[in-house]
């Protein structure tokens, strides 16, 4: 039973990929050649690639430097800096982009796009690295130094190899987010595959042009996933000795303290103060056009209800997979779990496009309804729920269940009175993560929202697309306020928090 459910969930997650593959096979080689091998696709490929490479490089450098400073140096106020470096995650990338472009219209260049997305995404690299630094055993470094290696050599030969998994994981996250990013880049007039698919969608609905661009985009995602696996390699690093690792003695910055503080301050100012300041400015500047409280409240209500429904549905779907991954370890359960990760690596625009077409053609009675939108959210955000549910199952020993069974409790009774209460914290955390992701989801919602449904993100989008920056600001503020608590949570437990 559990297995059947987990298989169904994996099938749902792989639906968009399957659709793209089927469509490609259906239009055949000549169709593919006509739609894929054309100058426009080359241009998009160049744009997308150089943005991904540039952003990953910038994020890696910023993330590594910031993580080292906070975890290993004597920079004053390390706890405060840690929170401030994670805080940019509370500002969705498309809101950050709006904040910058509404103040500096000249940012619609490669450099502008690079700046804005780097500021939005560097915490994805910073967070796992900060956690990884904390996990390093200083004894190794001290031994290396004792054997005569210089400070740099220790970093390159001892620390970096141990940080590799965190660095690659963070970089992969940045790259995947970038490939899927729509709002931020559309606003910066920087065309990539995702924005081009949206333009195609607007011109032809789900025409072959849009679907084939989606095919190329999916291919790019797969290339990234494989590359990350290859680069990560099989080498593992862990302490095997007895006893606890000694706390690290921070590296004294001495004369560098001033410049380092200035650098961190500039980074935080650019990533946090500019967007928040810009939002504040537009709230005040747009105040003369009376704020429509009723519309804002209504939209917030819709968004919260939608996010709650999506959180409940997605977490429910995550349970069988998360359960099997721990309690029935094996190739099959790993495969089922990984399928959901693969499915969610597919950008939102592709998921939406696939679901639009499938629901129009196969299940017309579901077309333009809430279940389809909820299915899209589930496909996109399942891993967030699975990871936390899985961790919770991992921490509950099967013993309690066995004891209850030996005392004569029925299966359903055990589930209700033993298993679910034990899993509750994990389920709750997973639901919260999905909830927050849905609150700021733009791309899939734009394509799939049922007639008459407006969310904070789509209301913000329609106002800011019309360059009505003042009217867009309140919706952005609500989104930031709703995301802020999660960010605090992330910064307080960096190891467990980052899940996609």
């Amino acid at each position: 039973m559990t297995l059947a459910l987990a298989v169904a969930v994996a099938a749902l997650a792989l639906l968009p990929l399957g659709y793209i593959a089927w469509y490609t096979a259906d239009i055949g080689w000549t169709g593919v050649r006509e739609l894929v091998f054309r100058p426009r696709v080359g241009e998009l490929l160049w744009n997308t690639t150089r943005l991904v490479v540039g952003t990953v490089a910038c994020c890696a450098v910023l993330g590594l430097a910031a993580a080292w400073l906070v975890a290993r140096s004597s920079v004053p106020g390390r706890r405060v800096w840690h929170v401030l470096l994670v805080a940019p995650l509370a500002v969705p990338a498309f809101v950050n982009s709006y904040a910058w472009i509404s103040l500096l219209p000249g940012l619609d260049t490669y450099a502008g796009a690079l700046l804005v997305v780097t500021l939005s995404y560097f915490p994805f690299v910073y967070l796992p690295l900060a956690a990884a630094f904390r996990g390093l055993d200083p004894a190794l470094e001290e031994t290396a130094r004792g054997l005569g290696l210089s400070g740099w050599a220790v970093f390159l030969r001892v620390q970096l190899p141990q940080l590799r998994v965190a660095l690659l994981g963070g970089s992969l996250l940045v790259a995947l987010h970038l490939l899927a990013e729509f709002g931020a880049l559309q606003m910066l007039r920087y065309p990539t595959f995702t924005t081009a698919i949206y333009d195609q969608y607007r011109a032809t609905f789900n025409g072959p042009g849009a679907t084939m661009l989606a095919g190329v985009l999916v291919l790019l995602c797969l290339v990234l996933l494989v590359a990350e696996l290859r680069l990560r390699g099989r080498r593992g690093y862990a302490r095997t000795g007895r006893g606890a690792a000694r706390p690290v003695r921070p590296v004294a910055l001495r004369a560098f303290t001033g410049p380092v503080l200035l650098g961190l301050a500039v980074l935080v100012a650019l990533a946090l103060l500019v967007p928040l300041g810009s939002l504040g400015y537009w709230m005040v500047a747009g105040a003369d056009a009376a704020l429509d409280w009723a519309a804002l409240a209504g939209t917030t209500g819709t968004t919260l209800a939608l996010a709650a429904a999506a959180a409940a549905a997605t977490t429910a779907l995550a349970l069988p997979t998360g359960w099997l991954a721990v309690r029935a370890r094996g190739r099959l359960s790993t495969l089922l779990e990984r399928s959901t990760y693969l499915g969610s690596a597919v950008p939102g625009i592709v998921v939406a496009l696939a679901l639009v077409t499938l629901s129009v053609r196969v299940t017309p009675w579901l077309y333009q309804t809430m279940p389809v939108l909820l299915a899209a959210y589930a496909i996109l955000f399942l891993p967030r729920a699975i990871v936390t549910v899985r961790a919770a199952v991992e921490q509950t020993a099967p013993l309690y269940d066995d004891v209850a069974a030996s005392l004569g409790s029925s299966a359903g009774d055990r589930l209700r009175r033993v298993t679910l209460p034990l899993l509750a914290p994990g389920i709750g955390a997973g639901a919260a993560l999905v909830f927050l992701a849905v609150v700021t989801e733009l791309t899939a919602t734009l394509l799939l929202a049922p007639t008459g449904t407006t969310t904070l993100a789509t209301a913000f989008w329609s106002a800011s697309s019309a360059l009505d920056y003042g009217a867009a600001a309140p919706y952005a503020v609500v989104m930031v306020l709703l995301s802020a608590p999660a960010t605090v949570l992330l910064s307080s437990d960096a190891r467990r928090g980052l899940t996609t």
Partner: protein
Amino acid sequence: MTRPRRVIAALVSTLGAGVVLAGCGSDDDVLTVYSAQHESLVRTMLEGFTEETGIELEFRDANDSELANQIVQEGDASPADVFLTENSPAIDVVDQAGLLAPLDQATLDQVGEAYRPSSGNWVGFAARSTALIYNPSEIAEEELPASMLDLADPAWQGRVGIAAGGADFQAIVSAVLALEGEDATREWLTGLQRNAEIYASNTAIMKAVDEGEVPVGITYHYYWFRDQAQNGLIGDDAALHYFRNQDPGAFVSVSGAGVLASSDQKEQAQRLVEYLTGAAAQERLADSSALEYAVGTGIASADALPPLQELQAPEVDPGDLDAPLVTELMQEVGLL
């Protein structure tokens, strides 16, 4: 191992809740209107419709081509009763797919013949003129090209703004196609692909011209007039130039309204289109801040606008514009 029935129960109940949520609002007395025209304009024009007729309206607002192609995909199963477009190529797509019901003759007669197709399957309810927005401190009016087609010349490289992804620009291309033919259109688009800066919307073009990013941009008239009415918030440094002389750049685009053949509430849908093209709605359009042209017979448009007849628009049958070919050509040259 326990059988997690609770999981199943949770699954079923969430999906069930979704279906219930989705089921809300599919009342029989509600007309579903797919609308690609500006939200505020449509709402203003239809003010009073529900009070007068007791018919509730539900809108799905999106872009011209998106909705048109969506209706074609949906076919007979389309939930839409009425389709309102911003430009006519989109409603032609639906008409050519045979999905529109003929309109009542009385409704058609409320609108001038130039603003409806010969098929009689849809009717215009507003009109807008193509124009060139320019920045007088970057370029003098005498230096502007005589024809919109000249903007494909190499001299304009990097100097013209267009909103290639938008339905408005695509409608203008469809007029060029109808007037000049496929080859000339391809050539023009190829030139534009090299010359043009692409913006997300006409408002964005106006802003870019105002700030001197590009000296000129292809747009519709009302974006500038609306901004002027709001004291030039975005485009006070920009001015408007009409090409006139039956140039493709003087094309007047018609917003269309039609009733879906698949609608199970055709009578109410017909009343909506009748209302939209009737004197009351047309006058409300003329009085509104939309600043598009009214097309109702005998209705004067807003005073701020130059009379439509003076703009020397080329003669184009609004029912004969080829959106699919436009998309294909734009894909071919790399604008989409």
